[in-house]
């Protein structure tokens, strides 16, 4: 593999790192913030399951992203991933909860505009509509789940200490599921743009199993996410854990489970084929925003409790972040591509016409 190829891949790794630093907080923030789980335990479980999810079932959601704009040249992919990562970094610095998904979608559209490629309207609508559906769905699921859990706890009279122990185990299990779903759903964001120009070749371990070039790409991306989780997510976890409204440990569990279910729904090929084979409407396999899902879930619980205690200013800044992220990422990508092409003389796209 050429040095330049590795160099271009670094932006994907940077984006992976940013995603790990940010989105691990969606999965484990409430648990770590409320001191139910130690950060070291959370970081370890999160890293392992993100890698598993990405390699085992990352292809579904990544495929849709690929349809939005197949970035044909490695330098172009480099800039798309870089500008997404950079916007995430900027927004994080500014203290705004941010969606990596939106950043990468903005970047791809920036590339499409620069290269004169048409943006697939069907794929775009599919993705953008999930930005609305995802938090709503997470909110709905969390309302139902929270109500059921409270009724259950009231009926069963479990000792306070035992509830605490169950909640800890539950948070760990939900976190593992969440990390798996995050890996499966969001790995496309991290290295999806590199798929058409993947520098890897299939790799076989004897006859035991083969790691395809895409899986290798996912593995590398997932490892970058894991590094982000371990090195930089603690602070974000503490902020998210106590950010919007104070959650009880059981509330935290409900939020994580709802978030994870939503991410899983939008990444599961198995579920898609099951629904399709029974003639039911399928759920599009789209990378959704982990941040949006968890915000939706937390707001669901807050509304169920009468909407008191919601810090609307925080919610407002989150929504503003959602609107700004794709635009900023798109602009950075467009400008960056211009420099890459005209100053560094790199081919950022292969003309198809």
């Amino acid at each position, binding site marked *: 593999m050429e040095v330049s190829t590795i160099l271009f891949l670094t932006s994907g790794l940077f984006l992976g790192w940013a995603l790990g630093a940010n989105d691990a907080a969606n999965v484990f923030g409430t648990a770590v913030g*409320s*001191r*139910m789980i130690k950060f070291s*335990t959370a970081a370890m*479980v999160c890293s392992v399951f993100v890698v598993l999810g990405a390699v085992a079932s990352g292809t579904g959601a990544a495929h849709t992203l690929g349809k939005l704009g197949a970035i044909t040249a490695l330098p172009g992919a480099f800039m798309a991933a870089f500008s997404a990562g950079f916007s995430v970094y900027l927004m994080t610095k500014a203290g705004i909860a941010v969606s990596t998904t939106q950043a990468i979608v903005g970047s791809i559209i920036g590339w499409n505009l620069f290269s004169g490629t048409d943006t697939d309207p069907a794929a775009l609508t599919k993705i953008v509509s999930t930005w609305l559906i995802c938090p709503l769905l997470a909110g709905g699921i969390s309302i139902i789940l929270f109500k059921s859990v409270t009724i259950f706890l*009231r009926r069963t*009279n*479990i*000792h*306070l*200490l*035992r509830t*605490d*122990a169950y909640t*800890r*185990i539950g948070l*760990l299990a939900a976190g593992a599921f969440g990390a798996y779903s995050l890996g499966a759903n969001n790995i496309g964001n991290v290295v999806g743009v590199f798929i058409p120009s993947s520098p890897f070749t299939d790799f076989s371990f004897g006859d035991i199993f083969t790691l395809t070039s895409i899986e290798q790409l996912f593995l590398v991306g997932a490892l970058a996410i894991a590094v982000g989780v371990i090195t930089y997510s603690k602070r974000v976890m503490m902020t998210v854990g106590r950010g919007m409204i104070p959650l*009880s*440990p059981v509330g935290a569990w409900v939020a994580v489970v709802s978030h994870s279910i939503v991410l899983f729904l939008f990444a599961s090929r198995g579920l898609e084929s099951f629904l399709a084979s029974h003639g039911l409407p399928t759920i599009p396999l789209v990378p959704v925003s982990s941040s949006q899902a968890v915000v939706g879930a937390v707001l669901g619980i807050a509304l169920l*409790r009468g909407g008191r205690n919601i810090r609307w200013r925080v919610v407002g800044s989150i929504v503003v972040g959602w609107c700004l992220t794709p635009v900023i990422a798109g602009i950075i990508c467009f400008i960056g591509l211009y420099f890459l092409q005209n100053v560094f003389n790199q081919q950022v796209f292969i003309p198809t016409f």
Partner: protein
Amino acid sequence: MELTSSIRLFGRTKALEGEIDEFLNRLSQSALLFKHALAIYFRSGADEEFEEKLKHVNALESEADHLRRSIERQLYEHTLIPESRGDVLGLVENLDSIINQLEGTLWNFSIETPDIPEEFHADYMALAEMSVMAVEHVVMASRSFFTNVEEANNHTHKVMFYEKETDKISTKLKRAIFATDLELSHKAHLRNFVEHIDNAADSAEDVADRLAIYVIKRTV
């Protein structure tokens, strides 16, 4: 590794649940023994049987102290129930002070051997009865706080009721004491013992007030 730590967590939780139960048992037993000891005192003074009860309460108090320290240490060492830890700590400490009060009152009877005229015995016993009821219900409220939080309110309001009753009896008793021809020093001595017994109910009410807030916190 996670599995073994989970098993440890459940083992620890079970042991701690047991210790909390044991602690509440000590308080409840102390209250019953307190009532029993006073009945003996009014029947035959601070005799051997009375001293035996006092010794028993004394032992229960030491055990309760030991349990309290162990509960507090475990809650903080293993960062259990981070949301309610402070509340449980406050609850256990305040309940412990009730045992101390019961023990202290019996010691006062043993050391000072107040000379209580027979006409007041029934009122002193009624006062002790109501105080012990208040303590009993605060124990029940505390148990409910851990298992069936909504049930706790049923007991806290009874604590308030019994505390009001002790207030009524103690006022009546003090008036009656000061209406007699006894020496002022004797009257003051008798009044002190009315207050000693009444104090247990007041402390039980303080704990019940805190519990009512903890219950709201846990149900929100």
